[in-house]
């Protein structure tokens, strides 16, 4: 180990001594975003059987989490239902992530639900990817099912948008692959038995056949990172929130399908 480490330390000194010009972060300004005119939901790339499962409001297993969310929504002394009607959320999921001016940060639907719990309901925040947070998120999101994603990108959100966009175009992991290389450049092509989708977020939280359960968009991102053998970011992290924002803008105009069924 030492034999390897010593030259590295030496090199760091040498480099550090040269100048303080930090490496210029590539901003991918020359890379085009996905052409909105070809934008299609991941639903398009599913087999007929999986499409039918998603559209079956009884058999879609994601509906188990909708039921659970509905029960939690009306549960407790300071229940969600004491302030909100489910109908109030008929567009909500289309508008997240959004800027929260009170806390001056980007917030997604999961974060909004947890913020309601801690500031208004006197309840502890729910753990990311817990069945309860997934259930509430799915219940709220599904109220907007069929409504198009319509996130407004305000000036405060610009830097998060940029870092999410950079994440999408940056090659990472042992496979040295960027999200864009599959989902912008090769969508519609076959990769083993799959047709590569455009990587949209409009179905999440979604029931994935691979997981055999329902999961969040961040869990999907974690798995994409693992897929290219990169170190994933924590679920709920600022990095994944930024990617979620970029993906929402990229999926602008696609309908919410929560709970979608995906491979």
């Amino acid at each position: 180990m030492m034999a390897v480490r010593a030259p590295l330390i030496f090199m760091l000194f040498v480099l550090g001594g040269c100048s303080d010009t930090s490496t210029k972060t590539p901003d991918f300004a020359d890379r085009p975003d996905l052409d909105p005119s070809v934008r299609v939901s991941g639903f398009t790339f599913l087999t007929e059987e999986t499409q039918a499962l998603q559209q079956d409001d009884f058999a879609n297993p994601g509906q188990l989490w909708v039921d659970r969310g509905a029960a939690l929504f009306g549960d407790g002394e300071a229940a969600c239902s004491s302030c909100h009607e489910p109908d109030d959320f008929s567009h909500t999921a289309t508008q997240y992530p959004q800027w929260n001016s009170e806390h001056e940060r980007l917030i997604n639907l999961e974060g909004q639900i947890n913020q309601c719990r801690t500031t208004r309901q006197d309840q502890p925040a729910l753990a990311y990817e817990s069945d309860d947070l997934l259930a509430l998120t799915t219940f709220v999101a599904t109220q907007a099912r069929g409504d198009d994603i319509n996130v407004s990108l305000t000036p405060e959100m610009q830097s998060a948008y940029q870092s999410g966009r950079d994440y999408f175009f940056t090659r990472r992991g042992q496979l040295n692959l960027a999200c864009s290389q599959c989902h912008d450049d090769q969508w519609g092509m076959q990769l083993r038995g799959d047709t590569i989708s455009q990587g949209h977020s409009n179905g999440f939280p979604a029931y994935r056949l691979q997981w055999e359960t329902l999961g969040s968009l961040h869990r999907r991102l974690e798995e994409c990172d693992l897929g290219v053998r990169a170190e994933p970011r924590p679920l709920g992290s600022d990095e994944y929130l930024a990617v979620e924002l970029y993906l929402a803008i990229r999926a602008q105009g696609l309908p919410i399908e929560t709970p979608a069924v995906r491979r």
Partner: protein
Amino acid sequence: MMNRRDMLVGTGGAIAITLLPKPASATPEEMRMAVTRLFGDRPINDGRVSLKTPAIAENGNSVSVDIRVESPMIEDDHVTQIALFAEANPLPDMIHCRLSPAMGEARLASRVRLGDTQTITAIAEMSDGTLWSGTAETVVTLAACVLIN
């Protein structure tokens, strides 16, 4: 959350799965033994059982199966059992059902796991003791990115 060690272990496993041979699966012989355990050595006739599965399943974790048996479902003439067997799953038995004339029709649908591309077999037992079977083949495709979990 996942730490670096878990990730490394997970990634190593993911690579390993593409290199290692397939997990053990049942053989047609083991499937015949499973059928015999449930129904004995009675002859099995082709027909009267319609088994439908998708021709291609994009994930073997959840494949729809639909079974229908020709039967009037009356006290004197009805289906008493329907069982489903997989010849290339680690275990050949999938689901065993017992039916009654109160159902009115002899059919059921469910979702099952298929470990690999294979033919699955549905066997129905009638109230007169005869056995009938139907088969269906499903191609299970491989996912783009293979990961454990």
